[in-house]
């Protein structure tokens, strides 16, 4: 089972105006599969403008990620990237953002745990340089406020941030590396599911990669997963103008990044003002449902379908963005007082969450229930899981969409007086 890229390419092959930032080990900018595509590079490990990978067996990792996302396609050389153009056209542009290298924690421990502070800087730099997609084929089991802030800001200004669900492998010391076998063990950046699109991996049968099916690793699971993409049996670019086999959620993630680039390219071509949430929702909601029916914690919304996402934007379908004004109703539901992470102040507080709903009626009915998702608006509520991270949010109540209307929802929080603890500080400090 694949993502049906050729059918998608019949619609859209990627625009050079759409820039994908590859936060990884750096890239070989002279690689033929990227000639004319790399519009900038920076090494955040050594703080210089040369993001060529450091020596080591993980050095080609960045090329592998970038190759799947955006290597030139149909150019008679190398591998095809999801957003790779069509031989004569380069497809999406690429920023090489080296956030993993000799000075990073990954290097020091010879493990694949990333360097999230460098990634925070790199992500901010990439967005400032025009990236509308940030690919993160890495994970780090240390929480990082700066990273959340950087990626939240990226998301807010329209950048789709992707991240791997992790391969749930043991490292050389036998410790579990980026173990995301449950939601409770989720690690960053995939953990930031409100703002990051977490990507799991499937095998060639379209199943979640599992040890039970003969693999020596497993695709991470948890309620933070968004979608899955192929994660085995890929070839991608490597150093010295070469190629390598490339797998894991590191490979699955750039499939989604590349598709996000295609979606932005197509939205651009259609004159649609897509936000990062729009892009993410379109990809998620057009995925092929696999695993348990509907959304599930192992495969999210399912295996991405590049063709379905792009076809959704084609006539006779019409894309309508609208706002629904205000509601005077109260809470449709109200949680008990519980602890929530208030990201803006980086503390955990007691609060109650109130769900506010509003029914809407379409001005013109649809032939069948349309695809629908909420869009953030000024003056609206915030997400159901991060009360005060300033991520505005509107959702659609499950099962409410009909041919004539739907029910929208958003969330507001009534914050208690109690601050439970500072995040990660280990000090319980109660404040009245």
């Amino acid at each position, binding site marked *: 089972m694949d993502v049906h890229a050729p059918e998608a*390419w019949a619609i859209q092959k990627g625009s050079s105006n759409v820039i994908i930032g590859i936060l990884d080990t750096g890239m070989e900018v002279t690689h033929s599969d990227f000639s004319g595509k790399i519009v900038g590079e920076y090494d955040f490990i050594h703080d210089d403008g040369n993001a060529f990978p450091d020596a080591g067996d993980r050095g080609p990792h960045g090329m592998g990620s970038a190759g799947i996302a955006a290597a030139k396609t149909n150019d008679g050389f190398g591998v095809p990237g999801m957003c790779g153009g069509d031989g004569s056209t380069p497809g999406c542009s690429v920023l090489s953002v080296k956030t993993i290298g000799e000075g990073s924690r990954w290097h020091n421990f010879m493990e694949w745990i990333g360097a999230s502070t460098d990634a925070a800087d790199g992500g901010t730099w990439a967005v400032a340089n025009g990236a509308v997609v940030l690919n993160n084929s890495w994970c780090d089991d240390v929480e990082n406020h700066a990273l959340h802030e950087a990626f939240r800001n990226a998301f807010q200004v329209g950048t789709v941030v992707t991240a791997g669900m992790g391969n749930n492998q043991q490292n050389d010391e036998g410790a579990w590396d980026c173990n995301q076998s449950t939601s409770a063990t989720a690690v960053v950046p995939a953990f930031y599911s409100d703002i990051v699109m977490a990507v799991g991996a499937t095998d060639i049968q379209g199943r979640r990669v599992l040890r039970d099916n003969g693999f020596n690793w497993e695709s991470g699971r948890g309620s933070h997963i968004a979608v899955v993409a192929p994660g085995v049996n890929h070839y991608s670019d490597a150093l010295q103008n070469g*190629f390598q086999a490339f797998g894991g959620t590191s490979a699955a993630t750039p499939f989604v990044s590349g598709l996000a680039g295609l979606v932005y390219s197509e939205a651009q071509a259609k004159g649609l003002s897509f936000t990062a949430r729009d892009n993410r929702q379109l990809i998620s909601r057009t995925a092929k449902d696999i695993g348990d029916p509907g959304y599930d914690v192992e495969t999210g919304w399912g295996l991405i379908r590049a063709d379905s996402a792009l076809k959704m934007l*084609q*006539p006779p379908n019409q894309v309508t963005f609208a706002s*629904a*004004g*205000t509601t005077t109703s109260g809470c449709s539901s109200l949680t008990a007082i519980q602890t929530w992470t208030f990201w803006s102040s980086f503390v955990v507080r007691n609060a109650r969450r109130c769900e506010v709903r509003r029914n809407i009626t379409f001005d013109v009915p649809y*032939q069948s229930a349309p695809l629908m998702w*909420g869009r953030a608006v000024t003056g609206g509520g915030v997400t159901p899981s991060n009360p005060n991270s300033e991520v505005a949010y509107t959702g659609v109540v499950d099962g409410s969409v009909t041919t004539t209307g739907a029910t929208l929802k958003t969330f*507001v929080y009534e914050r208690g007086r109690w601050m439970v603890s500072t995040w990660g500080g280990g000090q319980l400090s109660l404040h009245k």
Partner: protein
Amino acid sequence: MSFGYAVIGQRVPHTVTASAPSYVSIKATYSLDGSASYPSNGWQWDRSDNGGSSWYLWESAQNSSFIAYAGNYYVDWRLSASRIADAAKDTGYAQTHVCVETSGCDLALSTAVAASLIQPTDDSMVEHYGSGAWLVGDRGMGQEVIQLYSLTGAHRDTLTQKPNFLGSDIRGAQAAGGSGISSRVLYERTSSAPGWAVYKLTLPRGWNTLRAGVALDPDLGARAGDDQLQVDSTGLVIVKDETAVVAYLLRHAGKQIRPVIRQFSNGAPGRQDPASDVSAAAELLSTHDAVTGHPDDVRFLLAFPSVEFAAGSRGFELITLSGKTEQEVRALIGKLPRYVPDTDVPEEADAAASGVASSGYAMRLLPPAEHPSARPLPISASVMANDAQSTSAPAAVRELVRKHGITSVGITVPEQQNAITVRIFAPNGRLVRTLVQEVMQPGNYRLDWDKRNDAGAEVSAGVYVVVMEAGGQRFTRRFVVVR
């Protein structure tokens, strides 16, 4: 509390019946150039529902209905005739305006007929017919005429600026914004150096049939002995002096698709000068019927049957035919070399194979499409200089080897060890040499082939296919051995 949302779907439509201009329905006998008449049953109307960005091709749309949502629609009608392919489609339009669900205009219809309707211009008609190549594609959604470009003719130097009507950029513009022909066969001139015409042939993905052919024009002469065809690394086909007649002979899975030869003569009684013999050429192209010709002035049309293409197997062979009689052409085509016969060569190997024709002309296949099942290789190719400098090879072959030939492959074995098999097959499908068949540790390897078979004997000149299998996938590249 404010809410926002996005909705994507097909809204309940209005059905609008938009009639073509009344006199169109007459379908009367109509003359393209004022001197010839055609049966009426070849004409029909194409319709576009959104201002020409997407045409419903070959549709009898005299009174057809279409779905209209809120907004303004400009329904264009254009006359076309299956008999002459794309000939008249860009020559004139009628337009119907439909306005739906907008203020002051509820399902109102207004009609304006363009004054230039069905008035083809003379020069566009003249430009095409001489020698020329044509390509017709079908993408599975009904027949779609894609691109037709003239190889020769008075306007050859302005081809890029002003494609003739058969390769009209109008069509290209429609393709850019529409869904019908957004993937098109592009056959365009990329250089106008004196004495040479360079054409680039690009096949998009997704086409499941393709036909191609050439109208021959011996009037323009041919230069025997010249290397009329060359291929460079970007897939360019180089036609020297524009006098060579080039046919793109389609292959699929090793099978050669042979053309049907049609003949006509501009010197036949009652026929006009070639430059203005529009009707004869149109008839030829539209019906493929042979026209009895003058024995000293013979033209040919090579008509290729529709061919099913599969990902990774599309490709072309180049043959040259010029200044021949019909019998000579038939004989020549009958002797076309078979490069990769149907054997046990893996299909990928066959698709990637290329060869050197016995005539001395070089050929190659376009790169296989990027399909998940045919991902390109973890192989880097390089050229051995001594091969390229071989003086015994024809110039065109040396050029081919210089640009395409490889004598070594580089392999990167990733982080986990892999069972790697690298084998080399001869053009006839026979296994020549097993370079590697072992589990390889991670690292970078370079494999050189000494051009010997497993028995240690040197192989003969020709094209060999290297097949690499690793990780459950198979990839191919080719070696060109020149001696």
